[in-house]
């Protein structure tokens, strides 16, 4: 089983973020090769991952599950526990390219719904103040790389903060962009693109407010009656 766990960790690090379907696709042949039974339910996968985390956390690495509402998915994300925008993607990058990452991140996080049109990602404004410039083709290459790494997500011609940014950089985002990026009052984790109270507009995770509303029928923030309908399933996309 240890060999299976190690193989799984390497695959997670390679992908950066994985859906349950991909996890299953990876685990099936891996477990079959080593003749161990595969964790097949979501709960057993979570237990499997938490066992792996025991061996990763003291080394500054972690595997974290995060719900990603705009894709209607829950992802497992491979993260470094003490990352900052500067340390995040700077393998072999010039200082200007690192700065492009930080500025792009800030630009997107400053928007109300944390997304920008795709062509705004190549704006020269993002490179203002740098001594050397970054070619547009290189910016495209880098954005593609960072999207594959899970820091950004492209959807419907817009660029969103990706699942890895939300986990790895949650502290940075929460402290530098508190206007739009807040923590869910119920679980204290970052919440974006999720359910809002009809009265006070405060955002909660769908699952958190659903559990809460099983005991009360008011908004935990403003105390008014909760009116926003909650969709049953989290994996039906719009």
């Amino acid at each position: 089983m240890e060999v299976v766990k190690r193989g799984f960790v390497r695959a997670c690090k390679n992908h950066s973020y994985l859906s349950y379907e991909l996890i299953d696709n990876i685990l099936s042949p891996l477990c079959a090769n080593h003749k161990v039974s595969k964790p097949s339910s979501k709960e057993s996968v979570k237990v499997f991952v938490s066992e792996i985390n025991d061996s990763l956390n003291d080394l500054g690495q972690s595997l974290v599950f995060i719900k990603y509402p705009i894709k209607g998915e829950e992802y497992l994300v491979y993260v470094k526990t003490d990352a900052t925008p500067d340390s995040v993607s700077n393998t072999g990058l010039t200082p200007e390219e690192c700065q492009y990452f930080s500025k792009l991140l800030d630009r997107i996080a400053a928007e109300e719904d944390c997304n920008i049109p795709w062509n705004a990602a190549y704006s020269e404004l993002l490179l203002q103040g740098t001594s050397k410039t970054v070619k547009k083709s290189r910016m495209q290459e880098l954005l593609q790389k960072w999207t594959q790494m899970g820091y950004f997500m492209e959807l419907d011609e817009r660029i969103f903060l990706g699942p890895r940014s939300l986990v790895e950089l949650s502290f940075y985002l929460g402290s530098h962009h508190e206007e739009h990026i807040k923590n869910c009052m119920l679980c204290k984790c970052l919440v974006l693109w999720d359910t809002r109270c009809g009265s006070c507009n405060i955002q909660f995770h769908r699952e958190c407010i659903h559990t809460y509303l099983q005991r009360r029928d008011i908004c935990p923030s403003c105390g008014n009656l909760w009116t926003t309908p909650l969709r049953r399933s989290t994996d039906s996309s719009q």
Partner: protein
Amino acid sequence: MASTSRAARSQNASLSQATQPIREVDDKVRAILNYILDHTAQKIPIKDKDLVPSAGDRNELKKRLPLVTELLAKRFGILLTPLDAASKTLICIAEEPVASIHELTPAQRPQFTLLCIVLLYIFLRGNRIEDSKLYAVLEMLNIQADEEHGYFGANVRKQIDETFVKQQYLKRERSQLSAYDDAKTFFLWGPRAKAEFTYEQIVQFGSKLLNQHPKIFEPHLIMAQEGANAEQ
């Protein structure tokens, strides 16, 4: 005399401290490990001296490398190995081949497939194929080395000649039969290929690619295994 022996003792203590390997995970161990993990994706060898900044100085690095090597192996199944016996260059090799193509991202799959094709043809030629012959075989598969390919992308030649060689998947050897002959370049399986692929895997791949029963590769398998034994 007491003071001299105390001085001698403390000198001995600091000498042994200087070379004593570290057994606990500290910030420097984490920094070295993180540097290595950040660079494994590219699969390019890491020089000893690249790790020194994470440790502070060469001595601090030396004390921690055994622990870092052990942690990489035990927690990640990544084997940090010197490129060759004398080398100050290290490569990270996975402890076993990927169990399925799902372990690779969609972007990595074309390159992986190209690599499998190249390794297959080197294997079929007894682990040594002249570069021109390899490119001729690829042309027969409609893969032009210097043209953009719909699946394998641009620069197939660069991927093979440069990337796979740098990543240690392929080894390049130059050979000259005599002073009057032109030097020829041969491709062989590199140390990373030998560690991350098995001949059986390549045979399975070959039988699917060429639509043949794996049995036809038996003579090649025997030859390859004999060659591997001889090397050991």
